[in-house]
């Protein structure tokens, strides 16, 4: 039944009926990110009409730089959401870890790389600590991480000490987000990315065929790859037209690719999905549910720390408001707008990029239009609600079709 729904015979492909049917299928099926992409295009067109400065290399580079830090945090949150849990402490953890790094580097004169690694380890440790509370004592993650939010916010201020602000000067730390590579390097990275991607999908497809599993129709695969490759080339061309490829973007995309691979292609990833879909089934199957949860909380917090470090590197400082305000809420919103289910077991790490692009574009575009921050918040909220509504309706329809 589902095979029939997902891959109908590709005999005739003319006529608008067919196109609409295919679009609908993609919206309901695996290609759940299509509505987000369409929404993003709409947003861009609207802002471009309102302000011709919106779609310029300068502004788009800024947009990408703005979303990397929160996007990284969002990627971690998606892992937790896939488990069917939530991590409210991610923002505070990002601030705390950035502060640990800054204090170690500036006040204790620890080398930049070491300070960053210690900060990442601290993030991982914080995640594990919260995870132990959640898995061993069986407390709801909502409460544990809410408590964490308060605790780590306090810890941030404590770590920063009386000065309240630590300015970063270390070249390594500042270089994390602040390096712009020359065009040739940009093209090189893009080419490597594309080559690895093609090699990967070819290998994965062959594996699936060997296991006589259903494979995605070749035509869809090619379409998707083409879109992706064109996207990569366009992005790099765009970035090269301004200051070049920023290292922060490489970090962000790299993290997404790595964690997409982990969630989709490793046994660990499939365990995350199965625990998120039905923990009891996972337990019966002999999966160490506690361990999977623990590891995921640890990874999520580590990604939050990574996001905090990227933010600090970009803003050249860590202060008392680092990781506070709407950082966490934007990260959660991005995950959900990108198509990650709040109920677990459904979503992709790429949602962090897509969702952040949507939120970042709205914020950036409204800034260009010089609108006040309350309006920004209202509009972002509206888009979030719309995204979730579309997602839930599409899923309901998908389910009724399937039954």
């Amino acid at each position: 039944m589902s095979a029939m729904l997902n891959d109908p015979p590709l005999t005739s492909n003319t006529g608008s009926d067919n196109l609409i049917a295919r679009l609908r299928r993609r919206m309901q099926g695996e290609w759940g990110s299509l509505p987000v992409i369409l929404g993003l295009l709409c947003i861009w067109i609207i802002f471009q009409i309102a302000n011709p400065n919106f779609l310029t290399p300068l502004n788009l580079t800024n947009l990408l730089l703005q979303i990397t830090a929160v996007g990284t945090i969002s990627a971690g949150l998606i892992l937790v959401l896939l488990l069917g849990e939530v991590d409210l402490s991610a923002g505070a953890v990002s601030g705390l870890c950035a502060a640990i790094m800054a204090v170690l580097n500036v006040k204790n004169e620890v080398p930049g790389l070491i300070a960053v690694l210690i900060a990442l380890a601290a993030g991982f440790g914080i995640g594990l600590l919260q995870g132990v509370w959640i898995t061993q004592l069986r407390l709801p993650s909502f409460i544990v991480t809410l408590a964490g939010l308060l605790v780590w916010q306090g810890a941030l201020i404590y770590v920063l000490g009386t000065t309240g602000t630590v300015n970063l000067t270390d070249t390594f730390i500042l270089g994390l987000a602040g390096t712009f590579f020359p065009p040739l390097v940009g093209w090189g990275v893009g080419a490597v990315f594309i080559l690895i991607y093609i090699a990967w999908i070819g290998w994965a497809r062959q594996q699936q065929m060997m296991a006589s599993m259903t494979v995605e129709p070749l035509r869809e695969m090619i379409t998707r790859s083409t879109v992706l490759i064109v996207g990569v080339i366009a992005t790099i061309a765009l970035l090269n037209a301004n200051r070049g490829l920023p290292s922060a973007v490489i970090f962000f995309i790299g993290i997404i690719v790595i964690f997409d691979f982990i969630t989709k292609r490793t046994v660990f990833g499939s365990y995350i999905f199965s625990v998120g879909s039905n923990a009891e089934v996972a337990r019966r199957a002999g999966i160490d549910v506690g361990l999977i949860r623990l590891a995921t909380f640890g990874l999520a917090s580590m990604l939050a720390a990574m996001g905090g470090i990227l933010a600090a590197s970009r803003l050249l400082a860590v202060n008392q408001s680092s990781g506070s305000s709407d950082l966490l809420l934007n990260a959660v919103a991005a995950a959900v707008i990108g198509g990650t289910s709040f109920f677990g077991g459904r979503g992709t790490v790429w949602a962090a990029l897509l969702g952040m692009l949507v939120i970042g574009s709205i914020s950036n575009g409204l800034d260009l239009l010089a609108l006040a921050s309350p309006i920004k918040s209202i509009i972002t909220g509206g888009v979030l609600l719309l995204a979730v509504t579309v997602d839930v309706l599409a899923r309901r329809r998908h389910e009724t079709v399937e039954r």
Partner: protein
Amino acid sequence: MTDSLLQVSNLSKHYGSVPALEDVTFTLGAGEVLGVVGRRGAGKSTLLHLLTGFQAPSSGQIYVDGKPVQFDSPRQAQRLGIQLVHQKPDLIGQMDVLHHIALGNEIGWLSRLGFPDWGEMAQRAQKVLADFDVPPDLLNKKISNLSDEQRQLVAVASILSRGERLVMLDDSFSALSYQRQQLLLERLKSLASQGVAVMISSDNLKHLFAVTDRILVLYEGRVIADRHTVDSTPREIVELIVGSAHSDQVTPIMWALESYHIAQQQAEELGRVQVALREDLAAQDSLNRQLVERLREQLVALDQLNVALQATHRRLMTEREQERKYLARELHDQVIQDLLSFNYRLEEAENRMTEPAFRDDLVAIRNGIRQVVGDLRDLCSDLRPPTIDSHGLAAAIRSHTQAWVEQTDSSLTLSIDSHLGRLPEAIELSIFRIVQEGLSNIKRHAKAKRVTLLLERTPTTSLLIRLSDDGQGLTQEPDLAALSAQKHYGLLSISERVALLGGVMRIDSPPGGGVILQIEIPTPYPSA
């Protein structure tokens, strides 16, 4: 205790103050099949859950391979090769079957959580599913699209693909079809023969008696019996399950249990038979239709053959009549005329002859010639009734009957429809021949005094011929289909002619003697 795979001593489980299981003690050896029975709530599921780490016991000890163990999670039990198939399969709807069967038992490289080898896993899963007669394409289906039976099979297959040492089934049969239940029992038997221990909790005593070595009976959380299957009867087990030996209590339960499972099995058998029957009927139906079709074709062919045959026959008849006509004319115009002219010349010679002895000889010869001419004339009129061409059927029959009456001592009443008119030559001749044949039959066999011949047109423009006599009748009822076998050649020839003309013929032999031959021939309108 080294020879027992599993040993359980004084195992208890309390929910608050409510005891679910109390002081359960038993052992299970490798390759042994143990059945667990009891009423609902007797603690069957609880026992299996305690043994597989799904629940923790309140007290008591479990030993595996003689070593005390404590399971905090199913995973720990599974690590020791102890697996449980649950009563109701709980599956993740969005997963496909292959992933689900492999879940928790993935094969891959770079550690357990690394990269899965789906080819190897698919092969394993297919092997297990093939034991249950499941086509391999099930592996690609999504769980949410499966039937209840398929879901149960996925749950069973995912346990049986794991290289287990002790398999427990918690009443996992009910969703399966009868046939698959048998396959599962077979599979469990073969597992046991490979040294795997099996525990089956089930209500179906038939199953248990088919495969188990021992049966453990639970009653209100306690083991009240641990019997060797061969030493007990279903009735004893039911008595123990119910906790009473009163036959008025046990019998209806026995009966109900028996008939429930039998009914289930029969219903399924019936369903299968019904399907088979439906297929059979469809096949039969199409076969019948083919046969009928072929029969029809053959009939058509036969019909055509018949028509061709009749045409040939008719042509033969016509040719024969033509031949006869030609012969008669030849005789009449040539031979008879020649003879007459010889006779005339002989007469002249006779007149010229003076010798009386020669004259007498000549007279005798001339008389002989006249005799021959007479005979030849008779022959001619037999070959071709002389009147039929010039005066028609009625005249020909009249003249024939006159001659016939002269040759016999019967009287003949002839009645011919005055509106008979002229008919096509072939028909007239055939009718004439029929009458001729009929009369000669009467002359030869009937010894009749009175004969009646009737020819008349019926209102439906057919021609009716009725020839009746008061002779001795027929010795046996004539069968129109077997005239030649009965040596009625006269009647046979008549019936052939009637058939060629497309007519019908009836022969009646009334008890008082005589024969009535009645023939009806469809004729075209008279030509004149």
